[in-house]
């Protein structure tokens, strides 16, 4: 190829631009899903299934808790009403509640006749005596200061059944109302509940919902000084997403500047940063394309973890650059490096293959992404970069400083038994350090500020939402069967409440009795002649007009003949929130949930539930078992990966001694990093694990390159140069990440930064090219 220098760098820039265009094209095309379930193993136990269901699409996950504060209660109430009005017409929201429609208006007009079927009625509800007493009481109501409030209800509801039902349907501790809308106990914050149509862990849709609420509020609040606070899974995912993205992009910018400066400093050429960036950029895009082709949607975590893991490919071009020297063609150079580089890449790719068989969608994506990316970067370095690089003008082997450094390293001891002692110490710290080894709390996987969690719990309790740790589940083949089964549980639960073993419970059947119960109540309603006769006697003794209560007769008759109220009929009413939250309907089954508050005797509640064919679920335990399950799969995959890796390296090196020298730094580093983290009291989570995997990948490369540094002194110096640039760069990138305020980024950053230092030092001590031995072996 007869290319001029200008052509070459021109081609590199064209390549980069093409990658940019391709990147934009892909980002518009791929569907990034934030669905956490894709990153979780398949649920095995019923509790885990329920948990995953709740996590993703359960109504609880779609609830946003809204608090308005900072102005007078009157202003806040007015803003709460305006906000509800504005959001209620927005298609994004299934329900907006602020207490306004509670009570009388909780029941839409068309469902009003059902008031006689929802709550149990006394046997003599429609007797002339009882109706007479009710009418006398209504007369007094009419004469009371609240008469204006009652009057419109009377024609259709002289027994005020709607109030009785509304009272029965009130959550046991609904928030107090000021100016008709919900307020916290202190009366300082107006509270609203907003339910989105989109799932809680659909960050895009939640972002849109949160933005809508915020902008509507901004125009409503104007300059009243009030402010809005959003809580709930959706708000959290948006907040974390934004914070992580903004911090990651800031760190990313700093990293990029640092990398450019470092590459320029190391190679004294403005072209090197461009060329050095090409394999990484190609790798990332190729990985994304492969995942987009092979899977339904790309998980956000796949992208984050994937790009972390392929950080290792940044080293490939650096090794190549450092071995460039005048008088040797770039192609010869890369061909000489290839066995070492290729061994690392192939071994790592084979190791990542194990994730493909982990049975977890997210890990499969990660596997496809990293393998494609690593292969692409290696091939780009091997077959494209040499064509684009200018002939070298300097040889790093000529550097006097490097030579002095190399001499120093040669004088370093080759530790043997001290390493064994170090390993033993690390294992001891790892095992003996106090505190839990693993972080099983699912909540911390997507870490929410403890402050936000506290605030969320506070708002939840203000809004009367129950604790979600314990739950009774009742299964049925469909919604009606589950409702009926949960109704049968009520007397036992009432007994628990009376005994003080339980403070409160709630179930869907409280708002929507089973069809069977509704039929039973219909049979207890009087027929028209009987009702008219009783009513006529009752009205005769009062100042009410004779035909004042015609609408009442119509409503009772309608209730008597109407088809039973079904869950679907409630859609769009405040009752739907209550019912949907407590009735999970699947394809071929339904689960009625009984939410519990104030469990004073968990064992008693559990045994009562079991006795009645129901089950007490511990959601916390389920989530922790899920995380433990997940981790054990990752660990098994990793164990297999290490074996495969050792085998591949063994095949390539064909000497147990060399294999040991290459792998020992990586294994020791893993132990040391674990010991340091444990010693500092850090509970390990998935992000640490990912960090450790990357560190191990880097360690393998350091080991391989130190071990196979080349036969000549000059080659060894070039290898040292390359390794120095690689490790300083990685250290720079990940220590910045380690300074982040986001726990996830910090976990990955600190783990990798620590790993880089350990790997470099250990590889230098253990793997460095044994000059003497080689010459001996050669002799």
């Amino acid at each position: 190829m007869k290319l001029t220098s200008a052509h070459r760098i021109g081609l590199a820039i064209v390549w980069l631009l093409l990658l940019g265009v391709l990147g934009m094209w892909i980002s518009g095309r791929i569907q990034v899903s934030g669905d956490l379930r894709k990153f979780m193993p398949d649920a095995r136990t019923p509790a885990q299934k329920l948990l995953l269901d709740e996590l993703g699409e359960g109504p609880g996950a779609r609830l946003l808790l809204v608090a308005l504060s900072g102005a007078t209660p009157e202003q806040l109430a007015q803003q709460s009403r305006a906000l509800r009005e504005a959001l209620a017409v927005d298609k994004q929201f299934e329900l907006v509640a602020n207490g306004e429609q509670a009570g009388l208006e909780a029941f839409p007009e068309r469902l009003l006749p059902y008031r006689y079927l929802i709550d149990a009625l006394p046997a003599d509800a429609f007797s002339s005596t009882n109706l007479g007493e009710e009418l006398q009481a209504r007369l007094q109501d009419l004469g009371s200061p609240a008469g204006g409030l009652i009057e419109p209800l009377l024609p259709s509801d002289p027994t005020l059944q709607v109030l009785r039902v509304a009272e029965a349907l009130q959550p046991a501790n609904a928030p107090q109302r000021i100016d008709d809308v919900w307020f916290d106990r202190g009366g300082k914050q107006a509270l609203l509940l907003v339910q989105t149509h989109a799932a809680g862990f659909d960050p895009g849709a939640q972002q849109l919902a949160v933005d809508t609420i915020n902008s509507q509020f901004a125009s409503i609040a104007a300059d009243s000084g009030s402010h809005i606070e959003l809580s709930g899974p959706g708000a959290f995912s948006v907040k974390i997403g934004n914070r992580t993205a903004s911090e990651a992009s800031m760190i990313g910018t700093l990293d990029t500047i640092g990398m450019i400066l470092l590459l320029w400093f190391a190679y004294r050429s403005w072209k090197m940063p461009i060329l050095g960036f090409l394999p990484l950029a190609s790798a990332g895009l190729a990985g994304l394309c492969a995942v987009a082709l092979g899977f339904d949607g790309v998980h956000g975590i796949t992208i984050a973890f994937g790009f972390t893991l392929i950080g290792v490919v940044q080293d490939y071009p650096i090794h190549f650059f450092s071995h460039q020297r005048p008088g040797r063609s770039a192609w010869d150079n890369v061909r000489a490096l290839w066995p070492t580089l290729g061994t690392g890449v192939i071994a790592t790719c084979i190791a990542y293959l194990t994730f493909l068989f982990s049975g977890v969608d997210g890990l499969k994506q990660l596997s496809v992404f990293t393998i494609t990316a690593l292969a692409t970067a290696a091939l780009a370095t091997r077959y494209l970069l040499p064509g684009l690089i200018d002939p070298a003008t300097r040889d790093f082997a000529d550097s006097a400083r490097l030579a002095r450094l190399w001499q120093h390293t040669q004088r370093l001891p080759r530790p043997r038994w001290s390493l064994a002692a170090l390993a033993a110490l690390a294992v001891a710290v790892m095992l003996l350090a106090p505190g839990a080894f693993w972080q099983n709390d699912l909540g911390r996987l997507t870490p929410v500020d403890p402050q936000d969690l506290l605030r969320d719990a506070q708002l939840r309790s203000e809004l009367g939402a129950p604790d979600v740790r314990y739950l009774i589940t009742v299964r049925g083949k469909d919604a009606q069967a589950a409702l009926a089964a949960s109704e049968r549980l009520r007397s036992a639960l009432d007994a628990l409440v009376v005994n003080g073993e339980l403070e409160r419970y709630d179930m869907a059947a409280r708002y929507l009795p089973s069809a069977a119960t509704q039929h039973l109540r219909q049979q207890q309603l009087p027929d028209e002649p009987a009702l008219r006769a009783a009513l006529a006697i009752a009205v005769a003794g009062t100042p009410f007009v004779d035909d004042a209560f015609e609408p009442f007769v119509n409503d009772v008759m309608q209730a008597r003949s109407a088809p039973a109220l079904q869950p679907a009929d409630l859609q769009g009413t405040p009752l739907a929130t209550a019912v949907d939250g407590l009735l999970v309907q699947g394809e071929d089954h339904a689960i009625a949930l009984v939410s519990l508050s104030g469990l004073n005797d968990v064992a008693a509640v559990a045994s009562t539930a079991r006795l009645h064919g129901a089950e007490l679920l511990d959601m916390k335990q389920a989530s922790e078992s899920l995380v433990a399950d997940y981790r054990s799969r990752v660990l098994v995959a990793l164990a297999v990966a290490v074996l495969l890796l050792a085998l591949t390296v063994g095949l390539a090196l064909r000497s147990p001694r060399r294999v040991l020298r290459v792998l020992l730094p990586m294994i020791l580093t893993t132990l040391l990093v674990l010991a340091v983290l444990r010693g500092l009291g850090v509970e390990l989570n998935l992000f640490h694990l990912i960090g450790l995997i990357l560190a191990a990948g880097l360690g393998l490369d350091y080991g391989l390159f130190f071990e196979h540094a080349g036969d000549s002194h000059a080659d060894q110096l070039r290898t040292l140069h390359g390794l120095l640039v690689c490790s300083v760069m990685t250290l720079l990138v990940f220590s910045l990440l380690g300074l982040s305020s986001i726990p996830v980024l910090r976990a990955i950053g600190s783990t990798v930064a620590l790993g880089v230092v350990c790997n470099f030092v250990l590889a230098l001590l253990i793997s460095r090219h044994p000059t003497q031995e080689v010459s001996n072996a050669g002799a």
Partner: protein
Amino acid sequence: MRLLLTLLTGLLLTSPALADGIDAAWILRQLAQPAPSQTDFVELRGSALLKEPLRVEGQYRRPDVGTLVREVRAPYAETTTIANGQVSIARAGKPSRVFALQRVPELADLQASFGAMLAGDLGALEQNYRLQASGSAQRWQLQLTPKAEALTRRVRAVTLHGQNAELRCIETQPAKGDVQRTLLGGAASAAASVRQAAALNGLCDAGAAR
């Protein structure tokens, strides 16, 4: 609204009338009265559901600064007590019902403005209502128009009719429905023997009674 305003009648006390120059502040000064106090009332509640308007007779009492009692004597017995943020309603033959004042916004609004009126606190009252006085000391009207949106959704206006230091009648115009009238003190006594709705309405206007 009506309830709390009617409670104002508890403040009733005759005091020397001013010749003229009446305004809201003057009226409030006249009405201010220490507890305990009481006044009879007669209320008429019209409704399409009733053959004739319901006539309710009884007494408003203020046994102490923080308590308000509305006792209905005819045509039935019922006692409503508002104190310490709670309302209790006792009816003959039934256990009394107690609930938080806040559950009935109508009563809560009134409680808030009531405190201001009892204290003769014009400033506090003006926070919630636009006040407009008219007439003479012998025959004055004070119109209260709610400022807060929450209140306007329930009450359009309240007009107090009085003579000198006597509050004789409260006219409440609800946001929906007919005007409701409460006759107090002298007007209530005058109404004792009157059964015609029109004549009772006439009594509301202080001058018409004389």
